[in-house]
């Protein structure tokens, strides 16, 4: 039930984040607000946070999730992270290229 919350909120709540953010600013904000602490500097994820890149969830769902998370990530209210900043962060995550196929990396095929 808890996992359904973001999806339900997408439908129920008005979307307020700006649609187009600035990826360069977003990279700075991603570091400044500590997103990297759980999700890694390039959104790769890990034990503490899910991967965010290369294809982050759509901006609307992203906004709702960040504001209302009831999972392991605490919600980030507007007092801490504005809608514009959130859009910039989303733009940064969207700009991160897809990783190589692991089959092309010899160390991952030992």
């Amino acid at each position: 039930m808890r996992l359904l919350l973001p999806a339900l909120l997408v439908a129920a709540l008005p979307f307020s984040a700006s649609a187009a953010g600035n990826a360069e600013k977003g990279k700075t904000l991603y570091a400044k607000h500590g997103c990297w602490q759980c999700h890694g500097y390039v959104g790769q994820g890990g034990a503490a946070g899910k991967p965010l890149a290369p294809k982050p969830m759509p901006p609307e769902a992203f906004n709702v999730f960040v504001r209302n998370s009831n999972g392991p990530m605490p919600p980030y209210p507007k007092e801490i992270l504005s809608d514009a900043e959130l859009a910039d962060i989303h733009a940064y995550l969207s700009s991160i290229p897809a990783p190589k196929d692991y089959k092309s990396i010899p160390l991952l095929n030992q």
Partner: protein
Amino acid sequence: MTDRRKFLTGVVAAGAATAVKPAVSADTEAEQPRALSALPPTEQIAAAETRVPSELPPNRVGGVPGSDFMVDVIKTLNIKYCPANCASSYRAIHESLINYGGNRMPEFLTCMHEESAVAMGHGYFKVSGKPLMTLCHGTVGLQHATMAIYNAWCDRVPMIVIGGNDLDASKRPPNVPTFHSAQDINALVRDFTKWDDTPVSLQHFAQSMVRAYKIAMTPPYGPVMISLDAGLQQEPIRSHGTEKLYIPRYIPTSPPAGDSGAVKEAARLLAAAENPVIVADRMARTPNGPKLLVQLAEALNARVVDQGGRMNFPKTHYLSAPPTAVPGADVVLGLELADFWGTVNSWTDNGENGVGANSPRIKAGTKLISINASDLLTKANYQDFQRFQVIDVQMAADAEATLPALIEAVKSAIPAARRSAIAQRGEAAKKAHAEGEARTRQAAAMAWDASPISTARLAMETYGAVKDVDWAIVSQSGNISNWLNRLWPIKEHYHWLGRSGGYGVGYGAPASVGAALANRDLGRLSVNIQSDGDLMYAPGVLWTAAKHKIPQLAVMHNNRGYHQEVMHVQRLANFRNRASNYAGDAGPVGTRIENPDIDYARLAQSLGWWSKGPIKDPAQLGPALREAVKVVLAGTPALLDVWTQPR
């Protein structure tokens, strides 16, 4: 003429002179017939106990030191090393160990912190299966040692801790030695040791030492404590009337196995299950443990979630499964789980009003079976027994000792009609395992070329450098997203040793040195993924490794912070609608290790290690690792400082 050493040997072998086999070492005890304990010595030997041997020059002790007899007792237990930080309250036994005892069995290892000494014993045991002893000041030294003793307690690891203490207030030196004395030093650790004693005579010491070893080595294992009076160590052996000194034989106690009725019921549930899942934490006490678990899993084609308290199950086996296998189970068999509640429930630190939210991870009606020796060793104060979980079949027993009976019972309980379904379950598990492997490797490819270096790349560059030698992971402090367990072909019992037990930071570096010591004697290359925060608790253990020529490859997971704590502060700030104060660092005040950055390569070099770094470019990591491995194989410890992603 009886020389001094032969004299005490005579005491040790007292039983032989009275038709009882001589005291034997712990190593050979298992093969010995179970004879009675040693009998009192002959009159001739008894008389010799209380006089100074005539060939000895007069000494100021006034006889044979009591601590020499203590060394004879210790030698029967075949304890190979004594890592310790020197202290005056045990000076007499210290002197006896290195001079009378020849500094062999045990060999004194110079440590720079009592916590390091105990943690070295912790790591050593998990490789060798043999406990070590340590000596410490009974007050200040023991206070330093407590965190490591608590880790050993939580991790069910035996360790014999001996604290010097000067009990007699009328004789003890004033001032500093009196600050370092107490009525009952053992009280400090009584809540997290299996047993303790304060011997008041040499014979009492002999009984206490052998009993301590025996209790520590009876599953569930655990640390034990002996308070050793300075006067008793220092004074000469005296007559005790008709009581003559002897050394009791050490005979191992067999581990507790599960009740036959409970084993049969567990087998019935497992055999009838549609989707049984086995979860193991500290199940494999010995190298035989994983072999038994493979037999049980294959008999059922049940997937196995290895929580990693020990190396319980080969990661390369098709039945090896991630924790996400648990929710689909209709029967869960938990083997030596540190936290059964946490295995079948989840807790999310994000509930209403800042209180964590609980939710079950399993379906209603899922049957739960537990085999856990820790049920026999619960104390009240420290909460290492975790939350209470209702269990359908609960055996207070050692899992490894119970598995042979359970395997046979399961084979007998599987009806012929179930065999086809069980075989199909195996095919599905093979498919799931292969798909999981591919997903894991693709996840590892993310951030492959990033700087700071990704923890997945750190793991696999390291594996690439050691894969052609007999390697063993001796420690993984910090959190590197479990990449070693997800990517390395961990299949031998010694490939993975588990964690600290009590999660007291500072375990990783000293435990790795202790484990590397055991691996050195076995000819294996030790790999330690060393986090920055852990190392800085007591970095002096690096010098101990150099001093005693204990090689290891330490690859630093240097994320320049206490990342376990970063999000705790951030979370609370978010709950309170406040931006967290970073004060110019990359994380909340008090959680970062930067500005200035610590130069770990120079630190290690100053303590006698080969070192290199900091390495920030992933392309430079592989060549540096190969260079370091050559150094380690030549017998020198090597450290690479690597700047990494946070997790």
